[in-house]
């Protein structure tokens, strides 16, 4: 029983926690190119391999484009495959991201979320992963270091599920989580391999039984291939639930597609991704003590979008605040806002909603920023409207 066993507590940075999980997952191939703030992940992994603690091929590629290409080829041979990147590195991978999902390569990638040029900035925002939003990858978001570890293990379980065979990204906020030391509970190596045993990849490259991979498809067949991707990724919620159930039995920690907090009777609900979810929870708890009916919902899985789960949480809200750490320039709002508005509309939910673009390039989202934001939402209910639909929160105006 998990509650009876002695739990091993460690102190690790987010990057170290991811590397530790990858080592325990006993990956076969790691291909990467170093980039801040994920560098520590591949540094640790290369040390594990050099010290003989992990029996894997560690390939330092000459670019991220090559790194992900190596991962794609390796995954199709049936190797358990990992890479990690951030920012410009993910942008450089972009064309192969599409190939990886449509060729059904169960790669796991950590993204140490970081802003994009220009101007050059090494700090956190979600512009990198939002560019990869429509690539057919499953995108998971960690709120803290423990989750970065847990979700990395779950990512292998989800990616390699024979129902899916899709690549998964685990997102952790650059510096805020990658370079934060926090306590975490880890599983034993045996427990991890019990949870994610090596399973043969059903369509692996086999020279005795040759198959065609990544072929050309003309207008008479292309659409059917894409239709398959459309259908298969929608199976993710079910696979996620299974993966979370068995993870919970081993670890005692339970994950859902969304993580609702104090939402039951909430009039105001904030939707967010990443480490900010916890900061918002901390402040929401204080507002609750003052009688404000406020709740927070974090999305553990961003793609596929947990529309049904989110709609259920938002259906009775009077006012919804959406936190976007990226923007769709010239669009109707930030990427998360657009998803939330669509969810509200498709599910017939009538509520006030506004977008809060925050924290770009690592601008700190302070407790006071959260408090002011909550006041804005309270005020919107009182006067029946927001004075804008998109706020750049914390920008110097």
């Amino acid at each position, binding site marked *: 029983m998990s509650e009876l066993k002695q739990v091993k*507590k*460690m*102190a690790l940075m987010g990057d170290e926690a991811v590397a530790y999980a990858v080592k325990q997952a006993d990956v076969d191939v790691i291909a990467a190119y170093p980039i801040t703030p994920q560098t520590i992940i591949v540094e640790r992994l290369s040390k594990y391999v050099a010290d003989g603690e992990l029996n894997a091929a560690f390939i330092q590629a000459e670019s991220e484009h090559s790194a992900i290409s190596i991962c794609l080829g390796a995954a199709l041979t049936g190797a358990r495959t990992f890479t990690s990147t951030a920012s410009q590195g993910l942008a450089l991978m972009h064309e192969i991201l599409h190939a990886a999902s449509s060729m059904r390569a169960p790669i796991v990638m950590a993204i140490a979320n970081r802003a994009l040029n220009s101007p050059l900035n*090494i*700090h956190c925002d979600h512009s990198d992963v939002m560019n990869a939003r429509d690539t057919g990858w499953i995108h998971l978001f960690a709120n*803290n270091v423990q989750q970065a570890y847990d979700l990395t293990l779950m990512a292998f379980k989800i990616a390699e599920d024979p129902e899916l065979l899709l690549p998964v990204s685990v997102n952790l*906020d650059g*510096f*805020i*989580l990658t*370079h*934060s*030391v*926090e*306590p975490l509970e880890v599983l034993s190596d045996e427990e991890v391999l019990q949870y994610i045993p090596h399973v043969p990849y059903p369509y692996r490259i086999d020279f005795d039984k040759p198959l065609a991979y990544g072929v050309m498809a003309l207008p008479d067949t292309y659409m059917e291939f894409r239709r398959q991707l459309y259908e298969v990724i929608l199976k993710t919620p079910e696979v996620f639930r299974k993966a979370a159930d068995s993870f919970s039995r081993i670890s005692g920690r339970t994950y859902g597609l969304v993580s609702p907090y104090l939402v039951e009777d909430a009039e105001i609900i904030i939707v967010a991704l990443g*480490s*900010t979810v*916890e*900061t918002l*929870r*901390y402040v929401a708890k204080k507002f609750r003590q003052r009688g404000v009916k406020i709740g927070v919902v974090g999305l553990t899985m961003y793609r596929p979008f947990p529309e049904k789960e989110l709609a259920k949480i938002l259906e009775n809200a009077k006012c919804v605040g959406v936190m976007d750490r990226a923007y769709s320039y010239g669009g109707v709002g930030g990427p998360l806002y657009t998803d939330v508005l669509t969810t509200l509309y498709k599910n017939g939910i009538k509520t006030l909603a506004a977008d809060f673009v925050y924290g770009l390039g690592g601008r*700190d*989202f*302070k*407790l*006071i920023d959260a408090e002011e934001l909550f006041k804005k939402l309270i005020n919107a209910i009182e006067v029946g409207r927001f004075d804008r639909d998109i706020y750049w929160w914390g920008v110097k105006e």
Partner: protein
Amino acid sequence: MIEIRWHGRGGQGVVTVSDILARSAILEGMYAQHFPEFGPERSGAPVKAFTRISDEPIEIHSGIYNPDIIVIIDQGMSRSFQSYLEGLKENGLLFLNLGDDFSKLDKSILPRGVKVYIVNARKISIEESGRPIFNIPMLGCLVKVLSMPSIKTIEEVLSKRFSEELVEANIKILRRAYNEVRLVE
């Protein structure tokens, strides 16, 4: 929850010492969090690091603006001194890397009730190891006043990162500072 902000300059081990404190506190069963503020990563540039220690899980993932404790690793009363003090809570603690001459310390610029602790980190580290090390002596002062984490735990954390020789030298420095920290009356 105790919130600590560390100030110093690139090359003084500001980030490392906050990291070591957090790992030691976690090893002793507490909840703790360390995170750096990465400004320009240049030797000599001002660097901040943050530590939170609590007996409950820590949910906040933002900077520390009203610390309970400020530790200034930077030697003496540098030009940045006053800016380092920003946001220090009333009745907070301030740890300074000062020699015996602290007459220049103007306590009137401090918030009400702040207690000031000093240690001569340069003297201690040069005597013990032959080179100036500022971060570990400041940690020695801090753990003496906080009564945690234990020197033994810190030694364990240091051992995971540094050679035996270096750990030994650092622990000697830590112990000296632990014993020599003074409250400025």
